[in-house]
């Protein structure tokens, strides 16, 4: 039999047959009135062009699709900056508990005490891990957290008569969300360079400081997998000119229990619960991006916050200086629940094991692959390590993209490539703590094999992948003649 993962799967709309049913709903048990008597004629829909499939057809279709997909549960996923760790199954069971899954957000507090306790506890736990004073759980993803953090900074400045501060400093190696979030908050961005050590160029930073600076956004460890060891001085410099300092917590997997952004001088940070605290990525979300802040920013947090009262846990909507609402309810509760259980599993005794093993695994790969690929910065890295394929490109015409595609042939998900932009032909590898030494050794062997092939048989690398469900994709065609929605008649020439 042909491997279903390799066969072409038709679209739902092409499988559809008139009259098929995927669900059997009950007859109406109340007196039925005519539609015309209930709805204005102009508002009654004439045609509903949805597909028609039976239950087995639906299941087989989506099962086939799942088989064309790489996942953490099927293999090693060393995607830098994304923290693709194992997602514990106990947390998935918890998310299916009807006491959470079928809980309406508008229930009176008294009827949602279990959920409110999870939220209250997580506010405190994340505040402590961050080394901050308060936490809002509302942001629905990391970028949403950045936007909230910047809104808080803006509210602080306006409240202190400093509303004319209009610029956020962002290092050139920053995630693209940082400048994009600043723009969404109505800020201009100013880019500071990295120095030869891959850290913020202090001289350049100093030269840009002024009373227009509202704040600085910095990822620490930075996107090169390196700890910004001048962070205390950077914070002093920004505070010195009246600005505040934001920590992009995307890389917290390197630090949990080992160092706290609040202790470094940061005023506000976001967590990515779907990275550090293992709520599943879901093929691109949902995420959760709680924001932790120092005392000075607490008055501006969005509504509501969860508080503990004499009678139990409650939602506090009355926050006079709040920036308002940024989410319909209380954030990605189901992700927060999973992360809460993840943290409790380790507890105060063992949470740092997460960081220790993540950093150890990254440094092991760094050491073992050195000599086969050029490491971008030759020093102890944090939770991820960046190699450059510049030499391979120059000498053999093989680019980072080719290496990435060839790794798929060995059964691995590729690392992040071409990010950060300041490393040419970047290959960014993040193993996480949930991989064994044996898995890392096999991956290292595959990378060494590719390094050899680049020299001896570059064509096999260049034409990769050879063994994936589809061959190299024509991305240009998709962008030049966009087709983002199926239609019965071909719309393209």
């Amino acid at each position, binding site marked *: 039999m042909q491997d279903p993962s390799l066969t*072409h799967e038709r679209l739902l709309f092409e499988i559809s047959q008139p009259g098929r049913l995927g669900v059997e709903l009950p007859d109406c048990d109340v007196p039925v009135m005519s539609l015309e008597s209930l709805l204005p004629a102009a508002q009654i829909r004439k045609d509903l062009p949805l597909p028609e499939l039976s239950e087995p057809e*639906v299941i087989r279709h989506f099962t086939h*699709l799942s088989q064309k997909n*790489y996942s953490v549960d099927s293999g090693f996923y060393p995607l830098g900056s994304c923290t693709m760790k194992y997602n514990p199954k106990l947390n998935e*069971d918890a998310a299916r508990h*009807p006491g959470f899954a079928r809980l309406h957000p508008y*229930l009176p507090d008294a009827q949602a005490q279990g959920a409110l306790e999870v939220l209250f506890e997580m506010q405190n736990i994340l505040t402590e891990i961050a080394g901050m004073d308060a936490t809002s759980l509302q942001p629905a993803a990391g*970028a949403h957290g950045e936007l909230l953090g910047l809104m808080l900074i803006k509210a602080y400045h306006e409240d202190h008569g400093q509303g004319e501060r209009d610029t956020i400093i962002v290092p050139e190696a920053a995630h693209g969300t940082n400048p994009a979030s600043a723009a969404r908050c109505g800020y201009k961005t100013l880019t500071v360079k990295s120095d030869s050590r891959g850290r913020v160029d202090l001289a350049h930073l100093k030269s840009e400081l002024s009373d227009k600076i509202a704040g600085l956004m910095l990822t620490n460890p930075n996107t090169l997998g390196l700890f910004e*060891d001048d962070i205390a001085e950077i914070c002093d410099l920004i505070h010195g000119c009246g600005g505040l300092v934001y920590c992009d917590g995307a890389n917290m997997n390197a630090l949990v229990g080992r160092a706290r952004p609040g202790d470094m001088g940061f005023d506000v940070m976001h967590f990515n619960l779907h990275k550090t605290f293992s709520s599943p990525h879901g093929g691109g979300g949902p995420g959760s991006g709680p924001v932790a802040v120092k005392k000075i920013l607490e008055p501006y947090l969005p509504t509501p916050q969860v508080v503990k009262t004499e009678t139990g846990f409650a939602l506090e909507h009355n926050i006079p200086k709040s920036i308002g609402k940024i989410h319909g309810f209380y954030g990605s509760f189901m992700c927060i629940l999973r992360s809460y259980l993840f943290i409790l599993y380790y507890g105060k005794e063992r949470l740092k094991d997460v960081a220790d093993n993540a950093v150890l695994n990254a440094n*092991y790969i760094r050491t073992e692959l050195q000599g086969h690929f050029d490491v971008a910065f030759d020093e102890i890295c944090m939770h991820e390590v960046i190699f450059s394929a510049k030499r391979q490109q120059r000498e053999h015409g093989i680019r980072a993209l080719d290496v990435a595609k060839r790794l798929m042939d060995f059964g691995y998900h590729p690392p992040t490539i071409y990010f950060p932009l300041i490393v040419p032909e970047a290959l960014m590898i993040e193993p996480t703590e949930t991989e064994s030494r044996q898995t890392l050794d096999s991956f290292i062997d595959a990378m060494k094999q590719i390094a050899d092939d680049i020299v001896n048989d570059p064509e096999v690398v260049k034409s990769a992948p050879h063994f994936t469900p589809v061959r190299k994709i024509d991305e240009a065609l998709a962008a030049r003649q966009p087709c983002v929605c199926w239609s019965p008649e071909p719309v393209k020439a």
Partner: protein
Amino acid sequence: MAYIPNTDQDRQAMLEAIGLNSLDDLYTPIPEALRFTGELNIPSRYNQIALEKHYKTLGNKNASAEEYPCFLGAGIYDHYVPPTVGAITGRSEFYTSYTPYQPEVSQGVLQSIFEFQTLTCELMGMDVANASMYDGATALAEAAIMACELAGRKHLLVPDTINPIYRDVLETYVRHMNLTVDTLVTENGLTSVESVKAAITSETGAVLLQQPNFFGAIEDVQAISAAAHEGGALFVTCVDPISLGLLTPPGEYDADIVVAEGQALGCPMGYGGPLLGLFACKTKYLRRIPGRIVGETKDGDGKRAFVMTLRTREQDIRRERATSNICTNVALYALAGAVYLATMGKQGLKQVAELSLQKAHYAATEIAKIPGYSLSFPDAPYFKEFVVQTPGDAGKLNEHLMSKGLIGGYALGGHYSGMKNAMLLCVTEQRTKAEIDALVAALREFEGNS
């Protein structure tokens, strides 16, 4: 630790390979003064069995719709979720994968998103859709910002029949983009075309409208759409996707951008998050859409394949000039939405909508017969929600209903002054006649007590 495979022996061997003596040595790049050497003030660890008990204890403290018939809606709905949804979203090939940046090993997620986009378009009667937003509220805020940028104008006209929480989020978002919201105060539960015409100015970038509106009532979308366009503004609607099983789709009334909260499409209520934001618009605005979009293309063998496309709109490429800062969206919930719509199909979705409509009207009719109760907007047509004038404080009434084992409605007093004794009730296809009759009986008792 069961989630960390390496043993002390492994760690020792790896440290030796690296040339370090201890795990502490890994942190030498962090200045000593900045290392955390104490113990975190967080709970002690739970063993696996204790942890399982712990979450069950917490879960059991909540009044779930599994246990109590739920008449609460107001944006989050207890619609039936067919078992196909859990079977597919529970497949770890989907839920433990990342954003499909590497299309060769992500065709499953990519094709499912392409199908989700197509289903969204079919449902809404629109041309193009994106791969999802965080939720309905932020989708509306993003749509409003996009519309103002397209129109080159700075004001938004927003009737107060739009979900008040959505309006709160909208206010927060647009204030930071230096846009202003002109709120249109309505009467009788509906937005009047005349008031829209009177309020539109040459600076109105978009007229926003919710259909059915927050009170469950069905707006005259055709007339308001035309009024918006006559005023040179874009028309942005926020719809209930379940209602589109029965109601005229936004594409037929010339909506420019359409958003929705898609939670009802097979996603758990989950105490309000994560949710599923739907976003669709006319083809001519395709390149201004926020967030991810999946497109069709071909692979090296000429076979149909899918890939994230028009990527230059996004933050990782265009940075501060991106169409939005959104990155992670809710792919898994989009998958749930696709499986839901595929399972329900043409007949099922219509049936869900019709059952909800009929049962809501039965409930409203019976409640209006109880002395002391009446419909707040008796002349407004409605779908599955309606506002009831109650004989006492709506919050107190909800406590009474809970004592009878029922989850009551949404008390409107907090958001609408003068509506302290008013409650928004929701009836989905899940509610049986017996449950509705129990609600009616319980309401009658409350009247008797007050």
